[in-house]
């Protein structure tokens, strides 16, 4: 059973890695410290993937949303919001489980053996609401209202929080461009500290960024209960043994709510169900 479960996990990680490679395949960027400047970047990718990553071929939907909200003239981000609605309504948080490069990194870090893996802690349920606060405050309100003299707002989530931007964009670009070294300051330090904390936490807490911080996961979670691509429970077959809840690393009970907002559709419950009641 464990072997079967691990095989399934590695199959998922393979797909995650393939997707990450496919959407970050501008290899010249990694050699010359540049980013891709072609027209594919007009399109958003479904996962959290910094468009300043040297390999990125598409745009991060959260970055795209802030870019438009923070502009002096447009403000309302119909394109990015529509994209998130479209993807969310079709597959919900399947994106988090299968198509997000930063999710893959956290998944792999959690594979590192550690004696005390932490499944939950006091206040954990409450902490999960934080990602909605971050979505509203840092992605929408601050870029919209905290503006400069030209009426332009900064992408505050990217600027102050996003560890994916630091890992995928900041670190490689700074390593590859000496000219950037003199510009490094407290912000770069802060973002690297935040990244290190999250990467360290990922070893013993499953996907801390996705659970507590990610505004993209917050958006997709809203669509999870109504998405087209979804889990179904065969109530007649379900014996209520609780195996699905035990294997769920996102700490939900699929038998009670198979399309819970926190479900990232990783498929662990489906694989573990002894009655085959999850479809």
């Amino acid at each position: 059973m464990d072997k079967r479960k691990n095989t399934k996990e590695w199959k998922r990680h393979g797909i995650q890695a393939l997707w990450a490679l496919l959407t970050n395949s501008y290899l010249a960027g990694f050699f010359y410290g540049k980013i891709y400047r072609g027209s594919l970047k007009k399109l958003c990718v479904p996962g959290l993937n910094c468009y300043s990553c040297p390999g990125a071929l598409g745009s991060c939907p959260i970055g795209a949303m802030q870019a438009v909200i923070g502009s002096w003239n447009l403000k309302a981000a119909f394109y990015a919001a529509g994209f998130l609605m479209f993807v969310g309504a079709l597959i919900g948080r399947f994106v988090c489980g299968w198509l997000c490069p930063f999710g893959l990194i956290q998944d792999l870090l959690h594979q590192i053996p550690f004696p005390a893996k932490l499944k939950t802690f006091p206040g954990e349920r409450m902490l999960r609401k934080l990602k909605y606060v971050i979505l509203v405050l840092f992605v929408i309100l601050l870029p919209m209202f905290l503006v400069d003299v030209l009426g332009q707002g900064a992408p505050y989530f990217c600027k102050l929080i996003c560890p994916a931007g630091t890992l995928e964009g900041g670190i490689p670009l700074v390593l590859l461009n000496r000219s950037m070294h003199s510009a490094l300051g407290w912000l770069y330090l802060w973002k690297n500290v935040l990244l290190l904390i999250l990467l360290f936490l990922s070893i013993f807490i499953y996907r801390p960024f996705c659970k507590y911080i990610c505004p993209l996961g917050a958006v997709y979670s809203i669509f999870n209960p109504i998405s087209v691509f979804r889990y179904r429970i065969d109530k007649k077959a379900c014996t209520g043994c609780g195996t699905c809840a035990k294997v769920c690393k996102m700490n939900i009970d699929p038998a009670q709510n198979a399309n819970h907002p926190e479900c990232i559709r990783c498929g662990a419950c489906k694989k573990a169900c002894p009655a085959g009641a999850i479809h």
Partner: protein
Amino acid sequence: MSFLRPPKIGFLIAAAGLLLMGLGIYRGEMSMVWQKAINICMECIGIG
């Protein structure tokens, strides 16, 4: 995971999402996203 009896509301919202994307493209948002994405975002990488 299943496509069996999917909720119709999912399809409706997906269609509404496409309409919104179309509206955004009409307003020039796609070009703005592109302009932002083809230049290194100093804020995103922790320098700006």
